[in-house]
């Protein structure tokens, strides 16, 4: 079946602009996660959704970052007033439940000029 999909695959933006990144989880997966993969930093957790609520948003680096999930499915990660340090690959993952295997999407590569 279809895996986790993300769009866009690449995004180039100018410093100060807002960007929206989209994640379509595997159908039926109630848990959804956003991670960030920066050069030399490995993968950093950003936020976790269970259904439409976010019981753990402790990884969001600043108030410029926000995320929502609607209908227990699609999620959008929004970065306002982008900075160059926001450049990274943003990964989305989903799982049947919070203790199940996480399946990752291909990522969105964000470059802030």
């Amino acid at each position: 079946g279809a895996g986790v999909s993300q769009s866009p695959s690449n995004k180039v933006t100018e410093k100060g602009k807002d960007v929206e990144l989209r994640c379509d989880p595997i159908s039926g997966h109630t848990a959804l996660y956003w991670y960030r993969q920066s050069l030399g930093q490995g993968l950093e957790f950003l936020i976790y959704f269970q259904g439409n609520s976010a019981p753990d948003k402790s990884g969001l680096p600043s108030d410029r970052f926000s995320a929502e999930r609607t209908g227990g499915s699609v999620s959008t990660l929004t970065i306002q007033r982008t900075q160059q340090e926001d450049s990274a690959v943003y990964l989305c993952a989903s799982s049947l439940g919070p203790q199940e295997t996480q399946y990752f999407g291909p990522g969105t590569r964000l470059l802030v000029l």
Partner: protein
Amino acid sequence: AQRVTQPEKLLSVFKGAPVELKCNYSYSGSPELFWYVQYSRQRLQLLLRHISRESIKGFTADLNKGETSFHLKKPFAQEEDSAMYYCAYRGSTLGRLYFGRGTQLTVWP
């Protein structure tokens, strides 16, 4: 604080040689440990989880609670094993994984 440590950023071996990718974690409870792999131009995928105690693609990993380690081993490396390997754990906080910084494994012919 770094909770998962992968001390080798790069690791190179020749085909047929044994390979061991090191992973140490810092967690006082009973974590769940994972190895994820990312092949070139592919998405991150699960390789092993310690509770399964299975061998995937010839790789094994044993959780050593005394040494807080979860090293990944393969007795005879293959060229197709070349990839980035990430160790991760999940503690008491539901869902989220803590990842190490990864080890880039290169297997030379």
